[in-house]
C-alpha cells in the first residue's frame, strides 16, 4: 500500500510544482512535465513487483522497466519539444494493462483468498486497469489534436471520469485493511 501512497504524494507534488513553476521557473516546469510519465511508470513497476508472486514475472518487470526507460530517454532526445508524449504514454498504458492482466491471471492460478475483492491489491489493479483502458485512445490522439477545442473537451471529460474512477478504487483499497482473517489459508477460512 505504501507504493500507492508514494504515487499519490508524487502526483500531488508534481501538480503543485507544475502549477507554481510555470511562470517563474519554466525549466523546472518543463522538466517536471516531461519526466512525469517515466516516474509514474517506475512507481507502478515497483507496485507490481510487490504484487507478483512468480520470479519470472518479476524479472519481466525489471527488464521492461529498463527497456522503457531507455526508450523514453531516446524519445525525449529525438523529439525534444512535445506538448504531449502520446507514444510513451500509449506504451506505458499497454504495459500497465499487461501487468494488470498478469496479476489477475496469477490470482486464478494460485489463489490465496476466497473473495478476491477483499484484497486491497485487487482494487488498486482494477483502478489502474480501468484508467489505462479508458484513457488509452484519448491519449493516443492528444499529441496531434490538442489545438481542437472540441477534442480538448472530450479529453478533459474522459480523463476526469476515469481519473475519478481510479481514485475511488484506490480509496476503497485504502479503506480495506488487510486483516489477518482475510490472509489466513483459504481452507481454514472454509472450515471456520
Amino acid at each position, binding site marked *: 500500500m505504501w507504493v500507492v501512497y508514494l504515487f499519490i504524494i508524487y502526483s500531488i507534488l508534481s501538480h503543485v510544482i507544475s502549477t507554481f513553476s510555470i511562470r517563474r521557473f519554466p525549466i523546472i516546469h518543463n522538466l517536471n512535465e516531461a519526466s512525469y510519465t517515466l516516474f509514474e511508470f517506475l512507481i507502478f513497476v515497483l507496485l507490481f513487483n510487490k504484487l507478483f508472486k512468480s520470479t519470472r514475472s518479476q524479472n519481466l518487470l525489471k527488464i521492461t522497466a529498463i527497456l522503457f526507460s531507455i526508450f523514453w530517454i531516446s524519445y525525449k532526445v529525438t523529439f525534444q519539444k512535445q506538448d504531449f508524449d502520446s507514444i510513451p504514454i500509449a506504451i506505458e498504458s499497454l504495459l500497465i494493462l499487461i501487468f494488470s492482466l498478469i496479476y489477475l491471471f496469477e490470482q486464478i492460478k494460485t489463489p490465496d483468498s476466497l473473495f478476491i475483492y477483499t484484497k486491497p491489491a485487487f482494487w488498486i489493479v482494477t483502478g489502474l486497469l480501468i484508467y489505462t483502458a479508458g484513457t488509452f485512445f484519448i491519449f493516443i490522439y492528444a499529441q496531434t*489534436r490538442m489545438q481542437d477545442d472540441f477534442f480538448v473537451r472530450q479529453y478533459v471529460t474522459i480523463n476526469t471520469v476515469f481519473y475519478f474512477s481510479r481514485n475511488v478504487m484506490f480509496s476503497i483499497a485504502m479503506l480495506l485493511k488487510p486483516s489477518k482473517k482475510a490472509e489466513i489459508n483459504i481452507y481454514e477460512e472454509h472450515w471456520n
Partner: protein
Amino acid sequence: MFLLQASNQQNVSYVVYFGTFGMLLLAIGLIIFIIFHQRKVIQYQLRMRQMEEDQQKLMLQASILSQEEERQRIAADLHDDAGPLLATVRLYLNENLIHQDTATQLQSIYNAKQIIDDTIQLIRNISHSLMPPTLKNFGLESAINDLFQKINGSGSLNASCRFHDYRRRLKLESELSVFRIVQELVNNILKHSHASFIHLTQNRTENIFYLRLHHDGEGLTQAEVEKLKNTPQGLGLKNIQSRIKILNAKILFERDPSNTYYKVTIELPYETAS
C-alpha cells in the same frame, strides 16, 4: 496506423468514444470473469482436498482394523493354543508326581517336555509372523525366498522369485514395509485370483528400486484399484496404499498387453528407503 491518421474531427470522435467504450467493456468483462473463475478454482480445490481427506480417513480406518485383526489373531493363538498346552504341562508336573514310580515320572517329564517344545514352536511362529527373523538377519531377498518356498511347499501353486541386483540393502523399516506389501499382494492372489503361478522379479537403477509381481489368475487393473480407493472395501489394498504412501513409492496394477497375466509394479526411490 488508421487510428493515428484519422484526421476528420468526427472520425476522431467516433474512434475515441467507441474505442474507449470497447476497452472499458473488455476491462470490466475481464474483471468479472476473473472474480467468478477464481472462486470456481478455489471451490474445486476445496472439493479435491475434501476427497483426499476422506480417502485418508478410509485408509486410516483400514489400518486400525488391520491392527485389531492382527491383535485378535495373536490373542486367539495364545488363548486357544498356547494356553491349553501350558495348562496340560502343569497337569503333568503337579505335586503328585513325586509319589509316582520312576517310570511314570520319566514318562510324565517326557510328555511335558514334548508339549513345551510344541509351545515354544507355537510362540516362535507367532513371533515370526510379527517380525520374520530372516528379514532382520538376512534381508528382503531371503525373507521373500522363504515366503515363496512355504507357498511352494503347500502345493497350491508355483511361486518363484529372482533378485537381479540387491547388493544395496534398503533400511530395515523399508524392507519390512515392502515385505508386508508383497505378503499382502501374495495373500490376495492366493485368496481371489485362482492363479497357477506367481513370479517376482527385482531390479534397480541408480536411484530406484523395482519389484514386479506377475501371476496368471484374475487380477486388478489400476482403474479398478482407483475405484476401490473411495469405498470401504478392499482392506488389504488400503493397507498397501498406506505403506506405499509412507515409503513415498509408486504402485501400478496392470494387465499385460497379451492378456495372459496381470502384473503389479512397485517403484521405490532409494533416497527415502535406504
